[in-house]
């Protein structure tokens, strides 16, 4: 199929349909409303279900009910809306229901602003709702990757019977890039849903889809089942990308999403200036590629690891955890909807190198995160 130019939001919407998630529920919120607008037109064409509900609280729970049928269900929102969905997300994780949730992140906390940010990393990867659960979280950095990961998310949600979240910053939602949809999409075989979906108690005992376990031992058992799934994800689903990592690197950047692309430009420009920097880009942020990162970050030639985010420092905690103090971990971030420019990041790296190899310590990078 020929390449088409698509906005991230539209491309993700189309990808969900291509992956068979043609049941979509939503509540409008900038900067992801184009998904809803696109699917309002597309769903009737493919005989799917489109419904705009009264709130994200309702949307989350409509998705919960819809996922109970065993069919693929998809929803999208942006930061404050995702907060409202946490109730249902927690229940779905507890009841082991698959669904795909897209968060086109905007700046926060609170109402914040509509400009791009990566400040929902904690919410996405560390729980967000109540209870002992995890989401599988994918973070695309190009529109093509957003398409590929949306389709993958549909598969993984069913494979693990767990909600899967795609986090993109506002740039991913809003910018246009050429994308190509796979001609004949086939996915690996999945276990039957006929063991758990509510389909009517015909010729079998009634099924209950629930997260309520009065007996504490049974609740613990359920949590152990979930835990084992998360361990399996850690084994099988870790995804990341390396860019220009080599034995010449002094600095290793860790960055994801749009921010990682900005860092690529920085790395290209520094290369021309004779400074060698590599990039480690997590694609799954849960499970976090900790073993791979540890390996790359603790190579002999690496002096410093710089985490760059559009937040006040969230993923950096996972980076620190993975590296376990074996290398200094520095952080640079801008937030509030401000996207760091390549020049800003470049300046940080030059200062880091100077600090390590040059004159006395100047302003520390972590301090300068207050005002890039």
């Amino acid at each position, binding site marked *: 199929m020929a390449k088409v130019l698509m906005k991230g939001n539209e491309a993700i919407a189309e990808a969900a349909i291509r992956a068979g998630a043609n049941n979509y529920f939503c509540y409008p919120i900038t900067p992801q409303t184009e998904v809803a607008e696109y699917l309002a037109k597309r769903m009737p064409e493919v005989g799917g279900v489109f419904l705009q509900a009264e709130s994200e609280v309702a949307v989350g729970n409509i998705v919960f009910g819809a996922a109970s049928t065993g069919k693929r269900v998809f929803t999208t929102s942006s930061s404050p809306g995702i907060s409202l969905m946490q109730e249902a997300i927690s229940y779905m994780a507890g009841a082991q229901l698959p669904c795909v949730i897209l968060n086109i992140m905007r700046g926060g906390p609170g109402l914040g602003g509509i400009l791009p940010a990566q400040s929902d990393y904690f919410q996405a990867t560390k729980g967000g709702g109540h209870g002992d659960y995890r989401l599988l979280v994918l973070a695309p950095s190009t529109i093509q990757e957003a398409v590929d990961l949306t389709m993958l998310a549909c598969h993984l949600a069913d494979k693990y019977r767990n909600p899967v979240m795609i986090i993109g910053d506002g740039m991913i939602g809003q910018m246009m890039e050429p994308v190509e949809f796979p001609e004949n999409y086939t996915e690996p075989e999945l276990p039957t849903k006929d063991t758990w979906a509510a389909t009517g108690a015909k010729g079998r005992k009634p099924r209950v889809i629930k997260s309520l*376990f*009065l*007996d*504490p031992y*049974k609740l613990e058992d359920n949590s152990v089942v979930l835990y084992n799934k998360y361990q399996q994800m850690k084994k099988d689903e870790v995804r990341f990308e390396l860019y220009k990592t080599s034995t010449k690197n002094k600095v290793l950047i860790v960055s994801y999403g749009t921010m990682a692309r900005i860092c690529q430009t920085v790395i290209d420009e520094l290369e021309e200036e004779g400074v060698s920097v590599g990039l480690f880009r997590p694609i799954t942020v849960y499970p976090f590629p900790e073993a791979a990162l540890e390996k790359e970050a603790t190579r002999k030639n690496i002096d410093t690891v710089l985490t760059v985010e559009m937040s006040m420092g969230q993923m950096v905690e996972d980076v620190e955890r993975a590296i376990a103090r074996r290398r200094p971990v520095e952080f640079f971030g801008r937030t509030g909807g401000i996207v760091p420019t390549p020049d800003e990041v470049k300046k940080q790296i030059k200062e880091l190198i100077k600090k390590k190899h040059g004159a006395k310590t100047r302003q520390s990078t972590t301090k300068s995160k207050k005002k890039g």
Partner: protein
Amino acid sequence: MSGKTRFTPPQFSNKILIIVGGFGSGKSEVSVNLAAYLARTSSEAVTIADLDVINPYFRSREAASQLASLGVKSLIPGGENVHADLPIVIPEVKGAIEEPGGTLILDVGGDDLGARVLSSLRDAFPATGYDLLLTHNANRPFTSDLEGTLKVMSEIEGASRMKFTGIICNTHLMKDTTSEVVLTGLKQSREVSATANVPIVFLSAVTEVLETMDPELIDCPILPLNRSLLKPWERQAPTGGN
């Protein structure tokens, strides 16, 4: 326990003993210990019904297996419902009130809120033949003085549509309980008893504290308590009834 025999044990002429009181006064602990004591000392069957429809924590049902080993029957919701945060009153309770067949201890939830359940079961109770016992802890905020205690009593009487027949002096400060705490509490319970014209039926206190006390100072029957409703970190070894 040394000198166990010097205490006068509590005695009851009625078959149904209803334990009520303010939140956190120690109703469940007293109920469980009373059940265990009666099971050990009397030949009659002892049944305990957990009627706490208010608070799902520290209910007497937690001691059910411990009491079962002493032959005490617990009337509690079956299966996983035993853990439910639901106001479950199982039908067997009504039956047991109508025909106790031994001693029946009703462990009721706190305050007038918990006592409402008695009102809903009112037509099962015989006209007389039950004791409504106030568990009095003078160290709890709402029952720390005469006025407050009388108010709680009147509220419970209103909600349950029953009259008090006795007071259990159960003043304590959990682990910080001393003989002084027990004696100060007894003094306050006496004051309540005199004003409300309801007798003190017994004093209850943990064995460790009672052992340090001069029994002469306690002029009422005594029920020594072995703490059985423990916080998870207090449950070091399986707790027996003794």
